């Protein structure tokens, strides 16, 4: 198969690419703790800072809980702040992730998705992201190294938009993207810097002219209202993300969306999923299409906010949707399955769902074919 490479492309891993985007933005503060498969991100970023590419203050903290705590503190103080994590690190950080969102902290975090223990595993699934699904953070999932890079370049603009003011997590599949080299085109430093602009946070903590209290106590009288604000912020984020994508897209001549529609024209059966596995599904869709089968793919990029209405519209004339969750929910249905059941309720579209790819297990083309054919078990490739 001929590989078409864009002009000016170079080979980088997902971890390197995201670190490069962060260095181009040159945040003020980067508190971080290493964890596989995030480590290449901070390793590359630290190298770029040491080589003078960025002037960021990297804070080596003693845990991910502290990494997020320090990121919240510096971001609210008035300094553009970023961090990165994976899996158990995100689990340890979870308490502070809720606080980051609740305090409306516009931070950017790179996530290399990895399965949660136990058993101990270092490879990809999305269970870490799912754990904080209701925290109020925006989560964008990349399919490729190029997309992980581009989403990172755009992330500060989404997080810092006055209508949003929420953390943005740019999620990429551990190892499959973080450690795999793919050709990508980097945007020029000037364009990235110009696009990201200056960091402005309303009422920064270090503003001595207008002093403020942050991290307040709110009981029965105000807790509901302050949590509800995040619903409005997420609703606004759907528009802001689309606007930011539309603004960046012509600069790099690549399309972006909250969803990617692949061969949906006349499709009867459509797979719905997030992340790098979409590449395999696209190949299988191409094969099945050439065999005359009306199949397609709808890939979710913006997991939070979840663009339910856009999904419903995209699938309006489809017979069956096959949801593939890369995480499990013992005793219930996993997140994408549940979200899609809610989004499609009453639409008449049939819904089928599978769990796949736990702990880095590959989904191979034959299994993808079996999924389309309705011959795959609920847990794809489960030995029983």
């Amino acid at each position, binding site marked *: 198969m001929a590989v078409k490479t864009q002009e000016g492309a170079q080979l980088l891993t997902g971890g390197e690419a995201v670190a490069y985007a962060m260095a181009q933005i040159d945040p003020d503060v980067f508190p971080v703790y290493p964890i596989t498969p995030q480590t290449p991100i901070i390793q590359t970023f630290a190298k770029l800072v040491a080589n003078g590419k960025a002037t960021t203050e990297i804070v080596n903290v003693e845990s991910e809980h502290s990494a997020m705590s320090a990121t919240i503190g510096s971001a609210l103080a008035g300094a553009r702040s970023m961090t990165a994590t994976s899996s158990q690190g995100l689990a340890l950080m979870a308490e502070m992730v809720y606080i980051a969102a609740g*305090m409306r902290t516009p931070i950017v975090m790179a996530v290399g998705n990895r399965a949660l223990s136990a058993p101990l595993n270092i490879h990809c699934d999305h269970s870490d992201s799912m754990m904080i699904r209701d925290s109020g953070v925006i989560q964008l999932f990349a399919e490729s190294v190029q997309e992980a890079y581009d989403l990172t370049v755009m992330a500060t603009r989404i997080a810092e938009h006055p209508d949003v*003011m929420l953390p943005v997590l740019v999620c990429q599949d551990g190892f499959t993207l973080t450690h795999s080299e793919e050709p990508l085109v980097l945007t020029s430093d000037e364009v990235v810097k110009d696009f990201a602009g200056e960091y402005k946070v309303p009422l920064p903590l270090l503003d001595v002219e207008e002093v403020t209290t942050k991290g307040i106590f709110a009981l029965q009288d105000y807790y509901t209202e302050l949590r509800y604000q995040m619903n409005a*912020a997420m609703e606004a984020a759907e528009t802001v993300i689309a606007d930011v994508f539309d603004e960046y897209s012509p600069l790099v001549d690549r399309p972006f969306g909250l969803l990617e529609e692949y061969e949906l024209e006349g499709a009867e059966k459509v797979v719905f999923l997030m992340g790098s596995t979409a590449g395999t599904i696209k190949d299988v869709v191409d094969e099945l299409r050439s065999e005359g089968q009306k199949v397609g793919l709808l890939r979710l990029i913006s997991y939070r906010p979840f663009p339910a209405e856009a999904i419903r519209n995209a699938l309006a004339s489809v017979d069956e949707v096959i949801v593939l969750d890369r995480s499990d929910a013992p005793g219930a249905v996993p997140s994408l399955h549940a979200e899609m059941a809610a989004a499609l309720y009453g639409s008449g579209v049939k819904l089928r769902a599978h769990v796949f790819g736990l702990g880095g297990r590959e989904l191979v083309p034959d299994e993808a074919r079996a999924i389309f054919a309705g011959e795959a078990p609920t847990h794809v490739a489960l030995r029983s």
Partner: protein
Amino acid sequence: MSSLRPWQELSPGGTIRPTDAEKPKTGSWRTGIKPLADLSKCTNCLLCWLYCPDSAILIEDTTFVGFDDYFCKGCEVCAAVCPVGAIEMVSEETETPERWVMRSDESGS
């Protein structure tokens, strides 16, 4: 009590400006004792001001001028940290001004 505000009128994340907060008279929780200063001993070191957990030490510019009954909880921290023993805790019934202004003409003496 003021009426409760809707979510649209709250700053994101509940950030509070001094003007947003109703002035709560937390001094009403006081333990039953309150501080009394002996200005003839006070050296104006402002340790009490630094240590008071309720910002209840009043200063004018950099001069100790007394205690704010509105916020003072009677915790005795100021009396404990005063290096010259200028602060004594007295019973709540003891007559003291609502808002002390202790440093007057005799301060330089």
